[in-house]
Protein backbone atom coordinates (compact mmCIF):
# COMPACT_ATOMS: atom_id res chain seq x y z
CA UNK A 1 0.00 0.00 0.00
CA UNK A 2 1.40 3.39 -0.91
CA UNK A 3 2.24 5.96 1.70
CA UNK A 4 0.52 9.30 1.51
CA UNK A 5 0.31 12.44 3.61
CA UNK A 6 -2.84 14.53 3.30
CA UNK A 7 -3.45 17.91 4.86
CA UNK A 8 -7.09 19.02 4.89
CA UNK A 9 -8.57 21.30 7.57
CA UNK A 10 -10.98 19.47 9.92
CA UNK A 11 -13.56 22.20 9.69
CA UNK A 12 -14.34 25.26 7.63
CA UNK A 13 -17.06 27.88 7.17
CA UNK A 14 -19.42 27.47 4.24
CA UNK A 15 -18.01 29.25 1.22
CA UNK A 16 -14.49 29.43 2.64
CA UNK A 17 -11.67 28.54 0.25
CA UNK A 18 -9.62 25.76 1.86
CA UNK A 19 -6.11 24.69 0.94
CA UNK A 20 -5.36 21.00 0.47
CA UNK A 21 -1.86 19.47 0.40
CA UNK A 22 -1.16 15.94 -0.81
CA UNK A 23 2.11 14.02 -0.88
CA UNK A 24 2.38 10.43 -2.08
CA UNK A 25 5.33 8.09 -2.02
CA UNK A 26 6.27 7.14 -5.59
CA UNK A 27 9.65 7.08 -7.38
CA UNK A 28 8.32 8.63 -10.62
CA UNK A 29 10.86 6.74 -12.72
CA UNK A 30 11.12 8.90 -15.82
CA UNK A 31 11.94 6.28 -18.40
CA UNK A 32 14.94 8.35 -19.50
CA UNK A 33 17.53 6.90 -17.13
CA UNK A 34 19.87 4.11 -18.19
CA UNK A 35 21.54 1.43 -16.11
CA UNK A 36 25.29 1.00 -16.10
CA UNK A 37 24.87 -1.58 -18.88
CA UNK A 38 23.11 0.96 -21.07
CA UNK A 39 19.64 -0.53 -20.77
CA UNK A 40 16.86 2.00 -20.43
CA UNK A 41 15.03 1.79 -17.10
CA UNK A 42 11.35 1.64 -18.02
CA UNK A 43 9.01 4.49 -17.16
CA UNK A 44 7.00 4.04 -13.98
CA UNK A 45 5.07 7.13 -13.01
CA UNK A 46 1.83 8.28 -11.45
CA UNK A 47 -0.17 9.55 -14.44
CA UNK A 48 -3.32 10.90 -12.84
CA UNK A 49 -4.37 12.48 -9.57
CA UNK A 50 -8.06 13.23 -8.93
CA UNK A 51 -9.71 14.86 -5.92
CA UNK A 52 -13.46 14.45 -5.43
CA UNK A 53 -15.65 16.19 -2.88
CA UNK A 54 -18.68 14.08 -1.91
CA UNK A 55 -18.32 12.36 -5.25
CA UNK A 56 -17.88 15.45 -7.44
CA UNK A 57 -14.50 16.01 -9.06
CA UNK A 58 -13.00 19.31 -7.93
CA UNK A 59 -9.36 18.95 -9.02
CA UNK A 60 -7.36 16.85 -11.45
CA UNK A 61 -3.68 16.69 -12.34
CA UNK A 62 -2.32 14.89 -15.39
CA UNK A 63 1.30 14.09 -14.59
CA UNK A 64 4.29 13.57 -16.86
CA UNK A 65 7.78 12.34 -15.89
CA UNK A 66 8.84 15.91 -15.11
CA UNK A 67 6.84 15.85 -11.88
CA UNK A 68 9.39 15.20 -9.11
CA UNK A 69 9.53 11.92 -7.17
CA UNK A 70 6.96 11.67 -4.38
CA UNK A 71 4.44 13.88 -6.18
CA UNK A 72 3.31 16.83 -4.13
CA UNK A 73 0.32 19.08 -4.87
CA UNK A 74 -1.19 22.08 -3.11
CA UNK A 75 -4.55 23.19 -4.46
CA UNK A 76 -7.75 24.74 -3.18
CA UNK A 77 -11.45 24.07 -3.15
CA UNK A 78 -14.51 25.86 -1.80
CA UNK A 79 -15.93 24.33 1.40
CA UNK A 80 -19.49 23.74 0.23
CA UNK A 81 -20.81 21.10 2.66
CA UNK A 82 -19.66 18.57 5.25
CA UNK A 83 -18.49 15.28 3.89
CA UNK A 84 -15.61 13.36 2.41
CA UNK A 85 -12.74 14.43 0.23
CA UNK A 86 -11.37 11.49 -1.72
CA UNK A 87 -7.95 11.40 -3.38
CA UNK A 88 -7.09 8.90 -6.09
CA UNK A 89 -3.72 8.35 -7.76
CA UNK A 90 -3.33 6.01 -10.76
CA UNK A 91 -0.32 5.26 -12.87
CA UNK A 92 1.89 2.85 -14.78
CA UNK A 93 2.04 -0.86 -13.92
CA UNK A 94 -1.44 -0.77 -12.45
CA UNK A 95 -0.53 1.68 -9.72
CA UNK A 96 -3.57 2.78 -7.77
CA UNK A 97 -3.89 4.45 -4.36
CA UNK A 98 -6.76 6.10 -2.53
CA UNK A 99 -6.97 8.26 0.57
CA UNK A 100 -9.87 10.06 2.15
CA UNK A 101 -10.38 12.90 4.60
CA UNK A 102 -13.53 14.20 6.24
CA UNK A 103 -14.43 17.82 6.67
CA UNK A 104 -17.11 19.52 8.75
CA UNK A 105 -18.56 22.63 7.15
CA UNK A 106 -20.73 24.97 9.20
Amino acid at each position, binding site marked *: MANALINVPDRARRGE*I*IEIKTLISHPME*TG*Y*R*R*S*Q*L*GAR*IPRDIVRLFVCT*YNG*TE*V*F*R*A*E*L*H*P*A*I*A*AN*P*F*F*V*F*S*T*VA*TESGTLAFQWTGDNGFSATETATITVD
Partner: protein
Amino acid sequence: MNGETSRREFLAGAAAGLGLGAIITVRPAHATPQEMQEAIRKVVGSAPVTKGRVKLELPPLSENGNTVPLTVSVESAMTPAEHVRAIHVFTELNPQPEVVTFRLGPRAGRARVSTRIRLANTQTVTAIGELSDGSFWSATAAVVVTLAACLEDA
Protein backbone atom coordinates in the same frame (compact mmCIF):
# COMPACT_ATOMS: atom_id res chain seq x y z
CA MET B 1 24.63 0.44 -31.82
CA ASN B 2 22.33 3.29 -32.81
CA GLY B 3 23.57 6.76 -33.60
CA GLU B 4 22.68 8.06 -30.18
CA THR B 5 25.57 6.32 -28.44
CA SER B 6 27.57 8.92 -26.63
CA ARG B 7 31.07 8.72 -25.28
CA ARG B 8 29.60 8.51 -21.82
CA GLU B 9 27.43 5.55 -22.74
CA PHE B 10 30.43 3.80 -24.29
CA LEU B 11 32.39 4.30 -21.08
CA ALA B 12 29.39 3.06 -19.12
CA GLY B 13 29.42 -0.11 -21.16
CA ALA B 14 33.14 -0.52 -20.61
CA ALA B 15 32.78 0.13 -16.91
CA ALA B 16 30.13 -2.57 -16.75
CA GLY B 17 32.96 -5.03 -17.22
CA LEU B 18 34.34 -3.89 -13.88
CA GLY B 19 31.17 -5.14 -12.22
CA LEU B 20 29.98 -1.72 -11.10
CA GLY B 21 26.27 -2.04 -10.51
CA ALA B 22 25.20 1.55 -10.04
CA ILE B 23 22.73 3.41 -12.18
CA ILE B 24 24.17 6.39 -13.98
CA THR B 25 22.13 9.23 -15.36
CA VAL B 26 23.19 9.67 -18.96
CA ARG B 27 21.96 12.95 -20.32
CA PRO B 28 19.30 11.92 -22.83
CA ALA B 29 18.54 13.63 -26.10
CA HIS B 30 16.45 16.56 -25.00
CA ALA B 31 13.50 18.32 -26.52
CA THR B 32 13.91 21.62 -28.31
CA PRO B 33 12.05 24.91 -28.00
CA GLN B 34 10.37 23.96 -31.33
CA GLU B 35 9.01 20.77 -29.81
CA MET B 36 7.69 22.77 -26.89
CA GLN B 37 5.87 25.11 -29.29
CA GLU B 38 4.33 22.07 -31.01
CA ALA B 39 3.21 20.67 -27.67
CA ILE B 40 1.65 24.04 -26.82
CA ARG B 41 -0.07 24.11 -30.23
CA LYS B 42 -1.64 20.73 -29.48
CA VAL B 43 -3.28 22.30 -26.44
CA VAL B 44 -4.29 25.74 -27.75
CA GLY B 45 -4.95 24.86 -31.38
CA SER B 46 -5.04 27.98 -33.51
CA ALA B 47 -6.10 30.29 -30.65
CA PRO B 48 -3.69 33.08 -29.76
CA VAL B 49 -1.79 32.95 -26.47
CA THR B 50 -1.50 36.29 -24.69
CA LYS B 51 1.18 37.05 -22.10
CA GLY B 52 -0.44 37.99 -18.82
CA ARG B 53 -2.91 37.04 -16.07
CA VAL B 54 -0.71 34.02 -15.25
CA LYS B 55 1.92 34.17 -12.56
CA LEU B 56 4.63 31.49 -12.48
CA GLU B 57 6.75 31.32 -9.34
CA LEU B 58 9.99 29.33 -9.50
CA PRO B 59 13.26 29.88 -7.66
CA PRO B 60 15.69 31.71 -9.98
CA LEU B 61 18.43 29.39 -8.73
CA SER B 62 17.58 25.79 -7.97
CA GLU B 63 19.84 23.79 -5.68
CA ASN B 64 18.93 20.54 -7.37
CA GLY B 65 17.11 19.94 -10.65
CA ASN B 66 15.45 16.81 -9.25
CA THR B 67 13.02 18.82 -7.14
CA VAL B 68 12.18 22.40 -8.05
CA PRO B 69 9.17 23.92 -6.26
CA LEU B 70 6.68 25.59 -8.62
CA THR B 71 3.58 27.66 -7.95
CA VAL B 72 1.33 28.83 -10.75
CA SER B 73 -1.67 31.12 -10.36
CA VAL B 74 -4.12 32.77 -12.75
CA GLU B 75 -6.14 35.92 -12.06
CA SER B 76 -9.76 34.90 -12.13
CA ALA B 77 -12.90 35.33 -10.02
CA MET B 78 -13.50 31.58 -10.48
CA THR B 79 -17.24 31.92 -10.96
CA PRO B 80 -19.31 29.54 -13.09
CA ALA B 81 -19.44 32.28 -15.72
CA GLU B 82 -15.74 33.09 -15.74
CA HIS B 83 -13.10 30.70 -14.42
CA VAL B 84 -9.87 28.89 -15.21
CA ARG B 85 -10.50 25.52 -16.88
CA ALA B 86 -6.92 24.31 -16.91
CA ILE B 87 -3.28 25.25 -16.37
CA HIS B 88 -0.63 23.60 -18.56
CA VAL B 89 3.11 23.67 -17.78
CA PHE B 90 5.87 23.13 -20.36
CA THR B 91 9.66 23.14 -20.51
CA GLU B 92 11.89 23.66 -23.52
CA LEU B 93 14.93 21.52 -22.68
CA ASN B 94 13.65 18.55 -20.65
CA PRO B 95 13.48 15.23 -22.57
CA GLN B 96 9.83 15.98 -23.25
CA PRO B 97 8.07 19.34 -23.13
CA GLU B 98 4.94 18.47 -21.11
CA VAL B 99 5.25 18.74 -17.34
CA VAL B 100 1.71 18.68 -15.96
CA THR B 101 -1.86 19.80 -16.68
CA PHE B 102 -4.09 20.89 -13.83
CA ARG B 103 -7.86 20.82 -14.45
CA LEU B 104 -9.72 23.30 -12.27
CA GLY B 105 -13.18 24.84 -12.36
CA PRO B 106 -15.32 27.25 -10.32
CA ARG B 107 -15.23 24.91 -7.30
CA ALA B 108 -11.52 25.64 -6.91
CA GLY B 109 -12.28 29.04 -5.46
CA ARG B 110 -8.86 30.22 -6.47
CA ALA B 111 -6.67 29.29 -9.45
CA ARG B 112 -3.43 28.63 -7.62
CA VAL B 113 -1.57 25.31 -7.59
CA SER B 114 1.83 24.29 -6.25
CA THR B 115 3.93 21.24 -7.04
CA ARG B 116 7.54 20.13 -7.49
CA ILE B 117 9.04 19.54 -10.91
CA ARG B 118 12.21 18.20 -12.46
CA LEU B 119 14.42 20.37 -14.60
CA ALA B 120 17.15 18.71 -16.64
CA ASN B 121 19.16 21.90 -17.11
CA THR B 122 19.04 25.65 -16.83
CA GLN B 123 16.03 26.68 -18.90
CA THR B 124 12.79 28.63 -19.13
CA VAL B 125 9.51 27.15 -17.94
CA THR B 126 6.20 28.18 -19.54
CA ALA B 127 2.72 28.07 -17.99
CA ILE B 128 -0.46 28.41 -20.08
CA GLY B 129 -3.76 29.27 -18.42
CA GLU B 130 -6.91 28.14 -20.23
CA LEU B 131 -10.05 30.14 -19.36
CA SER B 132 -13.68 29.15 -19.61
CA ASP B 133 -14.18 31.60 -22.50
CA GLY B 134 -11.64 29.67 -24.55
CA SER B 135 -8.85 32.24 -24.23
CA PHE B 136 -5.27 31.32 -23.41
CA TRP B 137 -2.82 33.30 -21.30
CA SER B 138 0.83 32.63 -20.50
CA ALA B 139 3.81 33.40 -18.30
CA THR B 140 7.41 32.22 -18.27
CA ALA B 141 10.14 31.91 -15.64
CA ALA B 142 13.84 31.17 -16.09
CA VAL B 143 15.61 28.81 -13.67
CA VAL B 144 19.33 28.20 -13.27
CA VAL B 145 19.87 24.58 -12.31
CA THR B 146 23.02 23.59 -10.43
CA LEU B 147 24.03 20.02 -9.72
CA ALA B 148 25.34 18.51 -6.50
CA ALA B 149 29.10 18.92 -6.21
CA CYS B 150 29.97 15.37 -5.20
CA LEU B 151 27.87 12.94 -7.25
CA GLU B 152 27.42 9.39 -6.10
CA ASP B 153 28.29 6.97 -8.89
CA ALA B 154 29.73 4.31 -6.63
